[in-house]
């Protein structure tokens, strides 16, 4: 009886461990999916989760004058604390991270067949996801090194090599004095 109860506890523990491992794997995979360096490792559901997790705004633009065909206005960068340490690939290396970053552009975005690519300087940090009202587009990345003070923020549609058809936001990325840390 006692042994059986212990076995049940062990089984329950193992099941919880497996569930946690699954969650970790899926979160890591999701981040991959929105990472410019490793699109092949995406997992599907957790991109939605990463968009929903609470975030802390670490940078926010102030421009209110729309620019260009997409009426681009401004941006914000949010730091998202992950529920637990996650092992992901950034720039070809496996690293453990505790944070993701959401970069959101504001404007008026079309619903297009080609995906939107969001760039910080010449780094394509990932494909954007439109908000329901089409006034924002957001990309999630784990690559803190791409989020640099003074970086030009661009949007383009199509592949991640095409730097010739990008549109720049009216203002550059402005971080606080502390910047962001992985």
């Amino acid at each position, binding site marked *: 009886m006692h042994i059986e109860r212990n076995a049940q506890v062990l089984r329950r523990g193992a099941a919880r461990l497996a569930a946690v491992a699954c969650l970790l794997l899926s979160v890591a995979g999701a981040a991959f*999916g929105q990472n410019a360096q490793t*699109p*092949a490792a*995406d*997992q*599907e*559901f957790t*991109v*939605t989760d990463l*968009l929903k997790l609470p975030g802390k705004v670490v940078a926010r633009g102030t421009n209110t004058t729309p620019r*260009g*065909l997409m009426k681009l206005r401004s941006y914000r960068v949010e730091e998202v604390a992950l529920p637990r340490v996650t092992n992901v690939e950034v720039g070809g290396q496996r690293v453990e991270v505790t944070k993701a970053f959401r970069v959101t552009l504001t404007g008026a975005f*079309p*619903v*297009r*067949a*080609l*995906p939107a690519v969001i760039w910080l300087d010449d780094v394509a940090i990932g*494909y*954007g*996801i*439109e*908000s*329901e*009202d*089409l006034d924002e587009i957001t990309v999630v990345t784990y690559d803190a090194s791409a989020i640099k003070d003074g970086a030009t923020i661009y949007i383009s*549609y*199509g*592949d*991640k*090599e*095409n730097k*010739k*058809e990008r*549109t720049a936001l009216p203002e550059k990325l402005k971080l606080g004095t502390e910047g962001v840390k992985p």
Partner: protein
Amino acid sequence: MRKTLKTLTLIFFVAACALTAAAQTPDPGTTGAYAVTREEYDYGNLAFQPSGFPSAVEVKASIHHPTDLTGGPFPVVVFLHGRHSTCYGKSGLASLRWPCRSTETVIPSYQGYDYVAQVLASNGYIVVSVSANGINAYDNNVTDLGMQARAELVQRHLNQLNTFNTAGAAPFGTKFVGKIDLTRVGTMGHSRGGEGVVKHYVHNASLGSPYGIKAVFPLAPVDFNRPVVNNAALAVVLPYCDGDVSDNQGVHFYDDARYNVAGDTGAKHTIQVMGANHNFYNTVWTPGMFPAGTSDDWNAYVSGGTSDSQCGTVAGNKRLTSAQQRGTGTAYMSAFFRVYVGGETQFTPLLTGAAPPPASAQTTNLNVSYHAPDVAAKRRDVNRLLASPDLTTNTLGGASAQTGLTPHDLCGGDSPQPQHCLPSTQSTSRQPHTVPSARSSLRGLSQLRTGWAAGGATYTNDLPLGARDVSAFEALQFRVSVNFADARNATNAAQSFSVVLTDDTGAQSTVVVGSASSALFYPPGTTGPVPKVVLNTARIPLASFTGVNLSDIRSVKFQFDQTASGALLVTDLAFASAP
């Protein structure tokens, strides 16, 4: 004088051939004999859950069919629209959510192809157009950008048609029992729907092919994941002034399928429509035809696009009206499905380029490419130009040689070829054959990059013993584009050169390509994604090579003697016949 006379005679002969083919080829885009009924079925906004997709989606579609079903069972064509906003509010502002709010109205993208469905149904087809708003609202959240979900949605509707055909179901009762022929099915997908129907072909095959998909028609498609159709007919429409899928990446479907499977019975086609944009193929996406969410994508998405001489709105532009564009859709979708699903082979010359566009296309400014099935009687590849050995020994095992050409190398294919064929100053959107894919690392089309700066340059492929009797084929053909990035081509001037066949006696026959084909046009435009290089088939009927013994041809020579200099991209040199 004699040369001029000979050239004129040849032009007359080729023109006469084309006119004869045109005269003999009926117009597939005309309304047929059947009265048509249009109905819909709707099982709810969240009636189907695609695997691994963040939301359930709707099961809703229109169905056009012959009103009198007694002549059934009728072959089936399924349409799948592309990515577009899903709802709009009273202010007219579009949104991207599913289901729509109670204060919003659904944007019925699936209704935007009724103009084609009407024509096909009047000619004896059952046409189902599937609503996919639920997928559009969430597809950017998943790795494959919604392609598996689209494939499963199409299959869900085919299952529904199967139920209609066997037991019957609401809202139609038993009216379709025995009337739907699911062994003869064609699919058309627009935009992201284009890759969706290719993925569906693969999905249906993975299930043991419960439905007989005979023909797949991606219309202005994306190709993010690079699925491939083999052993079924394929036609890809490439709108030159596409402002959304501005890189014409859907050409990968054709390129990837060509030599993918030995013995592939599927014919492949591309139809490059000059002056066409992305949205005008769907009336619900066309300004003036629906109250919200519409745009002329070229003008709306391409920075500075309105000023482009080809695709913009400036005086003298070459854009098609929305009605003309729908004409090209009607003509070529009808031709394609009527040939490959309905077996109405009288329309085949439109798809091989043997006949010019029919009247229903409302334009003649389009280019048809054709890759014949991998069947000995239909295609004999002279040089596939896939890897460096092909520069010296062709696909048949004969010698391949050049004189006076520089460069004369392969580009665009697998490493070690350079990834792109144009210099890095040109954007990837101007190079559809090699544009990178969002979710695949596959490279692009291997192309011969060649050029000449003086007379006397030649490119010759010898035909070895056993491959010299080409008399049973209809045409010699290859795919080619003028390399606009090479200054040896005069800006905005078409290129030309000669093709020389030499027989066993040494007799030669020469055809000037510029007289037989329009494929050597200079790619027009100057803004953003144009000009762009798309390799189109130059088709030369073998009957126009007179005075040589076609049952013993020893070599095929390109003789660059029509212009002082030039540069081309070339691939797929073959003898071919209609499927």
